[in-house]
């Protein structure tokens, strides 16, 4: 959503942290949607057949085991991978000169 609107002021420089912030927000959104699809597909995909035909894993019906138990664990692991690998540290307060330079140079890991 970084259309040209409202940046008609030539001196306007956008906060360099936002690019990464937007990317992280999209990752979170993507993970949420993937979580929904996993839950829905396993839950209704295998749960919609007649109860007599159910298969069981560890005592749970397959649809429940995959959608709600494996799904919960899988997406917890994915959330951990998401923040460990793709979320970057950055200062949250007002930017100092050298913070700014570092961020504009593409940003290394920042304390």
């Amino acid at each position, binding site marked *: *959503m*970084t*259309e040209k*609107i*409202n940046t008609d*002021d030539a001196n*306007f*420089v*956008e*906060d*360099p*942290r*936002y690019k990464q*912030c*937007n990317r*992280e*927000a999209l*990752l*979170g*959104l993507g*993970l*949420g949607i993937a979580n*929904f699809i996993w*839950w*829905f597909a396993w*839950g*209704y995909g295998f*749960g*919609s057949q007649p*109860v*007599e035909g*159910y298969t*069981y894993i*560890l*005592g*749970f*019906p397959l*649809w*429940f085991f995959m*959608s*709600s*138990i494996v*799904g*919960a*664990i899988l*997406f*917890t692991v994915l*959330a*951990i991978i*998401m*923040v460990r690998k793709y*979320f*970057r*540290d*950055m*200062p*949250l307060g*007002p*930017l100092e000169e050298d913070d*700014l330079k570092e961020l504009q140079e593409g940003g290394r890991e920042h304390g």
Partner: protein
Amino acid sequence: MADARMDVLIPLILYFIVIYALGFYSMRFVTRASHREGTGFLHEYLIGDRNMGGFVLAMTLVATYLSAGSFIGGPGAAYANGLSWVFLAMSQMPTGYFTLAVLGKKFAIVARKINAVTVTDFLKERYDNTLLVVVVSLAVVFFFIAAMSAQFIGAARLIQGSVGVPYETALAFFGISVLIYTIIGGFRAVILTDTLQGIVMTIGTTMVLVAVIVAGGGVPSIIQGMLEIDPGLISPYGPNPELTSMAWVASFWILVGFAIVGLPQVATRAMGYKDSTSLKNGIIYGTVVSMILLLGMHLLGAFGRTMVADLTGDLVVPTVTTTLFPNWVAGIILAGPLAAVMSTVDSQLLLAVGAIVNDIYANLINTKVKNTAKITFISSIVIGAIVFIASFDPPELMVWLNLYANAGLISTFLWPVILGLYWKRANTAGAFASIVTGIGSYIAFDMYWARPLGFHTIVLPLILSLAAFVIATYATPKPDQRIIKKFWGI
């Protein structure tokens, strides 16, 4: 009091003593801050000087959005509806990572730029409109007073049922405790007690679930027992397919999974953490704890069906607990649901106070802000007293408001916060249009077409209010260049 069960009561009392201790510990920070100039006091009282670490952030977030609903009503519904309700409850799973990732660092950075201590502060700076501030603040005050009152009633019933004291005594004991620690300790007391409560809930849930599985002879035999009672109990459609239809169950992803971002008690936490490491750890702990609590509490309700027959709703957790454990252990475990209620109520109280003191008084009436501390305490006590008195005999208006509280708050905040944060073009007209359309259409749908196309009532109003936001924004001028610079500039 003659038939009060002392062995259940004593652990509960000990628990409350710890809660009070946390309140008094936080009071030291509040007292120190009350000497600060201007809005410095509110910075401590309403957001704890933005000092939350990752673990506390995760615990307070989870404890806040898991209310009595998921902790007392949820297991009750799982008892009645079996695995279908556990399946439904898992829609809340993303909240652990979704809220913090989507509001993310950007919300924290912007909050620091404009020195916001409430979500309304954010809306005020972003849309720069007095009427909007008033509407939003009043929505917070009214909806929260109603919601708090409902939570008080739930907690008092739980104490009444498990300890055996009269309803009024239970209400006084519980209500006054929550009010005291919140009022004296502010945000810091709220997040610290939330953390304790989160830990208690997690341990309690795990213990009860393990005990239930052992008592039932393992998962396979419990599931077969459920199958014998009613095959619907192990199907995603439940024993009552008209109730738990596919579209309706899937709607909960919107109601409790994604739109939770719009609840001010949740969004406030996304502006109060210390640094980006807190955010990372907050997401990790929050997701793990959500998973344990959601699965554990609801499975407990569903499994309980095979052990104790003919229970209704709110009594499932207390009954199963007291059946399986010696009374003093039950006392500790029952602190879990009470903790869920307390940690929800305390943040609602604080936000209602924030709406009055920060959003209306400091922003609009007295911008010089003197005597903030005094006014804050007085309004906290007044709001607390109103909620407390209303819980003895809830007036009609309050019952009605509570019915619409969550949907009303989500409609008020969701799109104005999200679009205000990520869309430069978003403007005041859009925010107004989305709030009016959201709340208006929700009430209309609720009255005339409660399950449009099979979905939960909240789904269409949220889509309509998004559309209204975009249309009204494009029909009116761009927001002021000054605002864009303040929010997006360096």
